[in-house]
């Protein structure tokens, strides 16, 4: 019997279901990227399970020819946790959105992150509720005018990555739907990570919140408004690569190269820092004062939750021996009643 796996292609991961996102939706690009990346992992496709909650993004499992579970609103991380803990052999991917993950499912999100369960979370952030037809979301900017906020929203938005870092995430990244190469590289890195891999994907909803990210995705703005994090490299950006990010005391600042500063003054990015402080500072870089960073903010090693659970069980079996039904039931203070009714201990 050959132990070699058949070589899988993108097509193997496409289900027979008609994809029904709105034409022009950023979700198509994400689907395409995931379908391109999974074959490269060299695992049989029955090992993959895509779990989702509710919302446009959460239709994702139907279009993947893997095992899939379209669950209920906000609960995908909890369901994925139960699955991964009981079946560590599976590759569990979660597709979720800004409403699903941070509004109704906020609690489950922070807890899956703090536990470091080995699941990959793809958070499609379009800063709007799409499936319910256009209400503001927990990542919408203040003053957002929507059907539910005709006079502008008042709530301060979540900074997705700060939230994840604050919750103790061990792998935190940001990428963009239309940056296919960067998206695929980021997915690959997530796939390799032990523990929870959290990726925020800026995703354009061309119906209810079109061009939400065009300030940094348009071809002519990308380099000036965006910054790509690369491990071991200085934080440099701009069309002419003439600007950078410097650490000034406890604050970050944008510097222009010239008389006062050069590239050597820039912060050299280290995604493996144990202390999440620097990753948090970077996550706080928002327009208009800063370019928006994409890339890997944090990638640190910590034992995965499911491995720790399995280790505890293994240890107890090793030290106590495998429990038997006899041990289970005939334990505690028992007494015997004989045929003649006599009671003995």
């Amino acid at each position, binding site marked *: 019997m050959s132990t070699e796996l058949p070589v899988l292609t993108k097509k193997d991961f496409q*289900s027979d*279901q008609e994809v029904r996102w709105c034409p022009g939706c950023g979700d198509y690009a994400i689907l395409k990227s995931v379908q391109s990346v999974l074959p490269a992992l060299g695992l*049989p496709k*029955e090992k*993959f*399970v895509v*779990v989702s909650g*509710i919302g446009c993004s959460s239709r994702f*499992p*139907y279009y*993947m020819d*893997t*095992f*899939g*579970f*379209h*669950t*209920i609103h906000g*609960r995908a991380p*909890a*369901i*994925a*946790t*139960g*699955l*991964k*803990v*009981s*079946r560590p*052999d*599976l590759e569990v991917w979660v597709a979720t959105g800004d409403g699903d993950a941070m509004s109704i499912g906020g*609690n*489950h999100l922070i*807890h899956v992150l703090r536990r470091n369960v080995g699941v990959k979370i793809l958070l499609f952030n379009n800063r709007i509720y799409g499936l319910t037809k256009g209400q503001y979301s927990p990542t919408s900017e203040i003053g957002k005018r929507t059907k539910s906020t005709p006079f502008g929203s008042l709530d301060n938005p979540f900074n997705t990555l700060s939230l994840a870092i604050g919750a103790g995430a061990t792998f935190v990244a940001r990428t963009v739907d239309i940056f296919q190469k960067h998206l695929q590289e980021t997915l690959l890195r997530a796939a390799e990570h032990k523990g929870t891999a959290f990726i925020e994907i800026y995703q354009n909803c061309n119906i209810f919140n079109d061009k939400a990210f065009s300030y940094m995705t348009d071809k002519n703005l990308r380099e000036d408004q965006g910054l790509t994090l690369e491990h071991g490299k200085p934080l440099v950006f701009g069309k002419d690569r003439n600007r950078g990010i410097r650490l000034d005391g406890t604050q970050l600042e944008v510097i222009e190269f010239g008389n006062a500063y050069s590239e050597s003054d820039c912060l050299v990015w280290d995604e493996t820092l144990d202390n999440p402080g620097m990753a948090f500072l970077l996550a706080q870089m928002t327009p208009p004062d800063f370019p928006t960073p994409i890339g890997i903010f944090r990638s640190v090693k910590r034992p995965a939750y499911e491995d720790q*659970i399995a280790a*505890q*069980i293994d*240890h*107890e*079996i090793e030290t*106590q*021996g*495998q*429990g038997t*039904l006899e041990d*289970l*039931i*005939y*334990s*505690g*203070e*028992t*007494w*015997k*009643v*004989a*045929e003649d*009714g006599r*009671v003995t*201990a």
Partner: protein
Amino acid sequence: MTDATAKPPAKEAAQPSDPTKVVTERLEDVVVRFAGDSGDGMQLTGTQFTSTSAQLGNDLATLPDFPAEIRAPAGTLPGVSAFQVRIADYDIHTPGDAPDALVAMNPAALKKSLMDLKKNGILIINSDEFKAGNLKKAGYETNPLEDNSLDGYRVLTAGITKMTLAALREVDLDSRSKNRSKNFFALGMVYWLYSRPLDSSIEWARKKFAKKPEVAEANILALKAGYNFCDITQAFQTRYEIEPAKFPPGTYRNIMGNTALSLALVAASRRSGLPLFLGAYPITPASDILHELARFKNFGVTTFQAEDEIAAVCSAIGAAFGGALAVTTTSGPGLALKSEAINLGVMIELPLVICNVQRGGPSTGLPTKTEQSDLLQAMFGRNGESPVPIIALASPADAFDATLEACRIAIKYMVPVILLSDGYIANGSEPWRLPKIEDLPDLRTEFHTDPEGFLPYSRNPETLARPWAIPGTAGLEHRIGGLEKENLTGNVSYDADNHQLMTDLRAAKVERIANDIPELEVFGDQDAEILVLGWGSTLGAITGAVVEARKLGQKVARVHLRYINPFPRNLGDVLDRYRHVLIPEMNSGQLALLIRARYLKDVVSFSKVEGKPFFRHEISAKITEILGGNEDVH
């Protein structure tokens, strides 16, 4: 006697000619209540008395009653914690309506329990605590030890606190720690009164405090001091004996409902070959199931303390998808939070056991008090047409069998099952005749593996169960979810006819379980005028009342439901046979409503929600009332 099934005490010894000589009298049963402050260790004291009596072969039933607050202000009425236990030399069904003996460790405990004590009952009082401050906290204007208000009881006042400290003079502990042993002094007194040996509690203390030998020593000394105090002072003219009950041969242990339920889950895991996964969030009175199962790691049990009730059930659903025996445990408020996820379970048709240990509601309600008021929530508390099998536990020992049955149905029918327990069963205990391992049900199941013609929503023609196709199985990649499923393929479908079909199929699947469960067996008179119909923890009180009624010549029968959805097939026929159907429930008539709706039978609903189980005499009085007799016949 609290239960009229008991005969008057058989006096073995002649009346003493010498009034100073203690005589021993044989009793058939006795009800003892230990009451004190929640810091006084009354639950432990009661448990020890129970455990010792169990090992002597008595039948027994217990009723712990403790406050929701971990430490309510010391000495106050809300801070009173009590443990009632009834032991007998025959088959009993309840922890007794009224105590024969009451141990009151402080004025608040006396105030709260005295009204329940039988006339001429024994009262053991720790007089050291009857000081002005404590009396005031309990709302006494005068000291009941001095105002003759305890006339009519056999009172023994003893300076339990001071005597305990004196007995422990040589022990190397601070006085606060020594003070904590006073419950064992009281226990020693009660052991003397009811002729119990001390060895079991001594052994327990040695084991429990193996790492703190001075604490073990303090407890043992206090226990012996209490016993000897009664022995030397001849505190009572009479001491009592309760012979072993006549049990069928076998091995027994005393078991609490939550423990039996936990053991059954592990047993179900072993008998099915499926790893057990428990997703739970701590909630009274269900938390002990989580505690219990967390110990069983060497049985391959995974316990997951989730971030909330929703995550608890959701993690279980995820585990079920992966092929585990998936369980979540909760109480009423938690069941409400889980309802959306349970519905997901209904839609995706995977096995899931939801254990709901009911407590007083609505809202946070009465966390530590018992009630049966989640029946309709279990039945209907979800959106859409959402049939879920419901199984009810009837007693602590029954919890083992009923839980195995819930697992069997969940696995065989690929369906979420709600298992209803309540606080009374959860914390109460009784002797459990241990099953032979080989007699446990075979719960083995097979995952689907054949990709040829695989359809995730095809069905077993007998059970209508769909195949369990777990991730990792090549060729079975498929998607499930909460959107309506197309018949056979399981693809999303909004088709009108398909929705009707799937709704009918989900209902039919649950209905078919009726073909797979035993028909009801009625106990009592063939020509009974009244059928007492019960479910859950009312079993004991109903059985006691029916036994009593028949002794009085009343024509009564009883039947108890383990399966509430679906009902056993012959329930309609059974109901038709009786002129009156009486349904006692610890709610406002929830089973009665279901029975009336389903069978158009005008049942008599007898309900109460007082945070405690029915007394036997309450049901007896109701039976008499229906029969048109004198209510006082009991």
